[in-house]
């Protein structure tokens, strides 16, 4: 695929993907110490979707995610320190220790929260898009969800409403084929979630979610349709999680996911593919890869160190935040 864009954007996407990968690998490594006392759902292998979509978003655009939302939070520019502090359930975390890994938030950059109820954030993102329309601004909302969410009523109800009202929202399905251990085809009659979007009256596409350039292209078009008042779009990105549904476990073989399937998707690693592309184009060099990695490792060391040394909430703060003032 040939896309005309400047090298800095390409490098930014690469850096974002690598940032997601390395942060999640560190979370994975730290988890065994039982200081991150919150269920984690890693996106390793799925980095291209968040990176290729969020690069088009402004700070004041909105995103919503799911229980598996580290990648989107990072790609949208959420505060990394506050994210890691939240994973350690510290008072200084982005949700003051009330949310944990499944509930990351950073309103400064339009991250209004993520839901651990499958399909739960789809109406919420449809609602911020409704607000953009009523407030007559050009802010766009992107809602990220998985293939499991397409089983839920909220998916269907929200897409119908967004199409009806021509709302500036992009529905991004990260289809990794599994809802916990249930394969998509044991839950849905077809493997084409995007067609539902078409039947609700909006463009729907199924794309290679491990090709960040393809994600970039489709997201760019969808977001620009939103900005121009042309209504919603749905993009179904086929991708694959490398880790098990939850925690740091691997669930390949042993009656869960087939080893051949896993190997196929690992061979299609979004970061490896993109870095090879960038190297071929002379944009990325081994030296630059090393430099970017080092910067990221330094950042990670710092944010984990600070998080681990940050205060926890005190018991007398239990009732804070039940109601807003």
């Amino acid at each position, binding site marked *: 695929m040939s896309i005309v864009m400047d090298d800095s954007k390409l490098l930014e996407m690469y850096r974002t993907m690598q940032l997601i990968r390395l942060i999640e690998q560190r979370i994975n490594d730290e988890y065994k110490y039982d200081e991150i006392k919150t269920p984690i759902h890693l996106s390793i292998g799925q980095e291209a979707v968040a990176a290729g979509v969020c690069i088009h978003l402004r700070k004041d655009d*909105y995103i919503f995610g799911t229980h598996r939302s580290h990648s989107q939070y990072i790609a949208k520019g959420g505060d990394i320190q506050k994210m890691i502090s939240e994973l350690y359930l510290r008072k200084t975390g982005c949700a003051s220790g009330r949310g944990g890994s499944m509930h990351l938030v950073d309103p400064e950059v339009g991250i209004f*929260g993520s839901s651990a*109820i499958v399909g739960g954030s789809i109406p919420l993102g*449809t*609602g*911020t898009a*409704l607000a*953009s329309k009523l*407030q007559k601004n050009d802010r766009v909302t992107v809602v990220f969800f998985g293939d499991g969410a397409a089983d839920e009523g909220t998916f269907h109800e929200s897409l119908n409403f967004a199409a009806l009202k021509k709302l500036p929202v992009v529905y991004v399905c990260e289809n990794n084929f599994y809802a916990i251990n249930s394969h998509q085809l044991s839950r849905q009659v077809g493997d084409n979630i995007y067609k539902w979007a078409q039947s609700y009256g909006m463009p729907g596409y199924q794309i290679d979610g491990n090709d960040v350039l393809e994600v970039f292209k489709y997201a760019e078009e969808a977001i620009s349709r939103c900005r121009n008042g042309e209504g919603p779009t749905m993009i179904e990105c086929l991708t694959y999680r490398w880790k098990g549904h939850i925690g740091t476990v691997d669930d390949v073989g042993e009656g869960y996911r087939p080893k051949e399937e896993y190997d196929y998707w690992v061979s299609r690693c979004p970061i490896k593919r993109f870095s090879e592309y960038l190297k071929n184009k002379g944009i990325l060099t081994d030296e630059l890869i090393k430099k970017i990695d080092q910067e990221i490792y330094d950042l990670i060391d710092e944010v984990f160190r600070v998080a681990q040394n940050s205060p926890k909430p005190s018991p007398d703060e239990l009732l804070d935040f039940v*109601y807003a003032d």
Partner: protein
Amino acid sequence: MPWTTVQVEKLDSFFISGDFTGDRVLTYREALHEAFDQSLARDPRVFIMGEGVDDVAGVFGTTKGLKEKYGADRVFDTPIAENSLTGIAAGAAMAGLRPILIHARMDFLLLSFDQLVNHASKWCYMFGGKVKIPLVVRTISARGWGSGAQHSQCIQGMLMNVPGLKIVAPATPYDAKGLMISAIIDSNPVLFVEHRWLHKTTGHVPEELYSIPIGKGVIRRKGEDITIVAISYMLVEALKAAEKLQEAGISAEVIDPRTLKPLDEQILVESVAKTGRLLITDTGCKTGSVASEIAAVAAEKAFHLLKKPIKRVCCPDTPTPTSDVLEKAFYPNADDIFNEAVKLVRE
């Protein structure tokens, strides 16, 4: 004419005095309409959505003409998708708007529990106060004749157990307007519980905008012998019963909590301290009702003040029957309150 309207039009227009002195008298529905009208005029962030809110009936007349006045962007009909619509309203609230979502039957609210309970009510806490949801969910219990089990429920009791949700249940026109305005200006999800049989109730209502503090109850009638706490429409029945009790030589104090959550515990305890007897009457089924919660508060905080066991006068634990004979047996009324109050005071 819808059957609930037929029924409501047959009711006496019950006048509740004492909220406000003046010569301006409105019905409950007119007071609500005025609250919407004035709020839409005052605050461009306010909008109304829900099934049929812009049709000719205008949700029993309470939203009639508002679309024509404020435009289809601010008063609009929605698909029949209660759950997602609740989430959509919550999302719009996060982005700075002040939505009023209307469910014309309280039964339909049950379809929206995921977005109301799992999302809107928890969002502020779950994100450490970073995101606010100033949302009004207005829901109407549509008791009529023959409404049956799915068009007449009063499920406020179920929602007492939801942290982060405020619940108001105004019984008078003055409160309907004032608490609607309070709900709109509040920064949290507020469930506005309304009873169809209150729509014709009349009372003094000032023309200007005013709010009523959420969490404060009011004494509707002063008395010495027994405290009757009456929720929503049961206030009308309780006031009728209190009048009859007076004739029988029993002085009943009638308390209207106005807000169900957070509950005004002080007004309850102070009244029980005076009377030593407590009867609670609610529009919902008995088990796990608001009456149950009020009884629990009294047992916890005023047990030593009670001379007799607490009495709840509620609907029995059965779905609402459709038969007019059974329906009559199902709903408690002023006579039931009177009889139980007499027993508490005399036996």
